[in-house]
C-alpha cells in the first residue's frame, strides 16, 4: 500500500499512540521502577520517578523472607508440566481430527470447546472435595492436572487450526514417495508442525502461569505458585511497596517477555481461530 501520508499527520498520530501506549503500560513501568527503590522512596511525596537510590535490596529480601524461589519453581513446574502433559494428550487428538476427519469430528471439537465455556465455579465444589479426599489439596500434582485439563480444549483447538493448514497434498506426496507412516511423521509432518506446536506451547505456558482461580483455591503454601504467593501480599505486608514490586516484577517478567513473542498466536488461540 503506497499511500501518501503527510509528515505532520504522521507525527501527530505517533505522539497520540505513544501517549496512550505509555499510559496503559505505566502501572507495569511504575512497578518495575518501584522495585528498585527503598521503602522510603517508594512512598515519597512527591513520587520519585527516576532519581532515587537504585537498590537491589528488595529482591534479596523478598527471597530471604518468604522463600520466593520455591514458589517461583512451583509456578515453573506447574506451567511447564501442565503444558507438556496437555500437548502429549492433545497432539494425537488434534492430529487425527485434522488429517482424518470423520463425521463426528466437528461435533467432538465443539463439545471440547463447550467444556471451556463452563464456569469454574460450576465444578469447584466436587473438585475440591475430591482433592480433599485424595490428598491432592495443596499439591503440585493436583494443580498441574487441573490446569492441564482446563487448558486442554484451547491446546487442541490451536493445534487443530495449525495442523489443518498443512496441505493434504504434501502428505499424499510423501505417501507416493514411499514414506511409511512413521517416516511421514518423522520427516514431513513433525518439521511442518513444529512452529504451530511451539506457539501453542508458549500461549499455554502463559495461561497456566497466570491462572488465578484454581491455583488460589487449591493451593495454600507448599505447592503455592506465584499467583497464590503474591495474593498473600494483600495483607498489610502489601504496604511494603518496594518489596511487593520486586516480587511482582519477578513474577511477571518471564511471562511478559514470552507474551511479546506470541502476540499473533494469542489472537488465534484465544478466539479459537474465529479471528486470524
Amino acid at each position, binding site marked *: 500500500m503506497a499511500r501518501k501520508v503527510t509528515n505532520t499527520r504522521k507525527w501527530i498520530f505517533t505522539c497520540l499512540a505513544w501517549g496512550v501506549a505509555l499510559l496503559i503500560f505505566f502501572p507495569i513501568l511504575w*512497578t518495575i521502577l518501584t522495585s528498585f527503590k527503598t521503602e522510603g522512596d517508594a512512598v515519597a511525596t512527591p513520587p520519585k520517578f527516576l532519581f532515587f537510590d537504585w537498590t537491589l535490596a528488595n529482591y534479596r529480601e523478598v527471597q530471604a523472607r518468604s522463600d520466593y524461589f520455591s514458589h517461583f519453581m512451583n509456578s515453573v513446574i506447574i506451567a511447564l508440566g501442565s503444558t507438556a502433559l496437555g500437548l502429549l494428550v492433545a497432539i494425537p487428538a488434534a492430529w487425527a481430527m485434522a488429517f482424518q476427519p470423520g463425521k463426528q469430528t466437528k461435533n467432538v471439537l465443539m463439545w471440547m470447546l463447550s467444556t471451556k465455556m463452563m464456569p469454574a465455579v460450576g465444578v469447584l*465444589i466436587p*473438585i475440591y472435595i475430591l482433592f480433599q479426599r485424595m490428598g491432592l489439596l495443596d499439591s503440585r500434582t493436583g494443580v498441574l492436572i487441573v490446569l492441564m485439563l482446563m487448558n486442554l480444549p484451547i491446546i487442541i483447538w490451536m493445534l487443530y487450526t495449525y495442523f489443518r493448514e498443512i496441505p493434504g497434498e504434501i502428505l499424499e506426496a510423501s505417501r507416493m514417495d514411499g514414506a511409511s507412516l512413521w517416516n511421514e511423521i518423522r520427516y514431513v509432518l513433525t518439521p511442518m508442525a513444529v512452529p504451530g506446536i511451539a506457539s501453542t506451547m508458549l500461549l499455554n505456558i502463559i495461561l497456566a502461569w497466570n491462572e*488465578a482461580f484454581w491455583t488460589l483455591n487449591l493451593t495454600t503454601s507448599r505447592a503455592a505458585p506465584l499467583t497464590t504467593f503474591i495474593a498473600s501480599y494483600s495483607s498489610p505486608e502489601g504496604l511494603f511497596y518496594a518489596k*511487593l514490586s520486586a516480587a511482582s516484577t519477578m513474577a511477571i517478567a518471564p511471562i511478559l517477555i514470552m507474551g511479546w513473542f506470541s502476540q*499473533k498466536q*494469542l489472537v488465534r488461540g484465544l478466539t479459537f481461530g474465529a479471528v486470524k
Partner: protein
Amino acid sequence: MATLHQRSLARLMVAPSVVLLFLWMIVPLGMTLWFSFQRYNLLMPGMEEFTGLGNYRYFLSDPGFWISLQNTLIMVGGILAITVIGGIAIAILIDQPIFGQGYVRILVIAPFFVMPTVSALVWKNMFMNPVNGLLGQVSRAFGAQPVDWLSQYPLFSIIVIVSWQWLPFATLIFLTSLQSLDSEQVEAAEMDGAGIWARFTNLTLPHMGRAITVVILIETIFLLSVFAEILVTTNGGPGYQTTTLTYLVYTQALLQFDVGGASAGGIIAVILANIVAFFLMRMIGKTLD
C-alpha cells in the same frame, strides 16, 4: 480419503482427550447438580439429605444472590463497554502510519500478561491507596481530597482494574481484524468520495463486526469467572458491594462449607454462562465449515 484402518487409529488418538475432558467437566458437573439437591454442609457430616429445590429456594431468596447477580451484570457490562469502545479506538490509532508501531503494540499488549493477583495488588496498593497511592498523591498535588477508591467506589475500582487487563486483548484482536481489511476496498471507497466517518461506519465497523462479537462473547465467558481480583482487593466487600456470583459461590462453599447451597449457585452460574456460550459456539462453529 481414509481407509478403515486409519479411521480406527484416528479414533484411538482422539479418545484420551475425550475421556479426560469428560471426567474433568461432565462428571464434576453432575456431582454439582447432585449436591445442589442435597442438604450438605462439610461442618455437619452425616446430616446429608435430599432437599429437592430447597437449596435453590434458599439461594434465590438470599438478598446477597440478587445483589451479586446485579454486581456481576454491572461488572461484566462495564468492562465490556470500556474494553470494546477503548479497544476499537486504540486499535484504529495504532493502525495509522506511525513511528515505532511495533513498540507501541508491545507496550499496549503488556497488561494482558500480568497475572491477576499482581495487577490487582499493584492497583490496590500503589495506585488506589488513599494515603500512599499514586492517584491519591496526584489529587493531593492538585489540592483535592484523595479518594479511597476501593471503599468509596469498590465496584467501579474493580471494573477499572479488570478493564486494564482486558483492554489489550480487545485491542489486539481489533488490530488483527483491522489489518485484514482490504486496502483496495478502502481506496475504492475513497474514490467513491466517502469521508473518514463514512468509511468508518460503512467499511471499518462492518468489517470488524465479527471481531467485536468474538471479543464480547469471549470476554464475557472469562469475566463471569473473575475471582482473584476481588479476592485480593475487596474480599467481596464492603458488605456485598463487590460480591459477584462466582465470588458468592466461593464464599458459600469454601468459607461457610455449605456444599448444597454453593452447588445451587454454581449451577445458576453455569446456566448463565451457557446462554453466552450458546451464541459464541454458533459463531465459532461457522468457521469450521
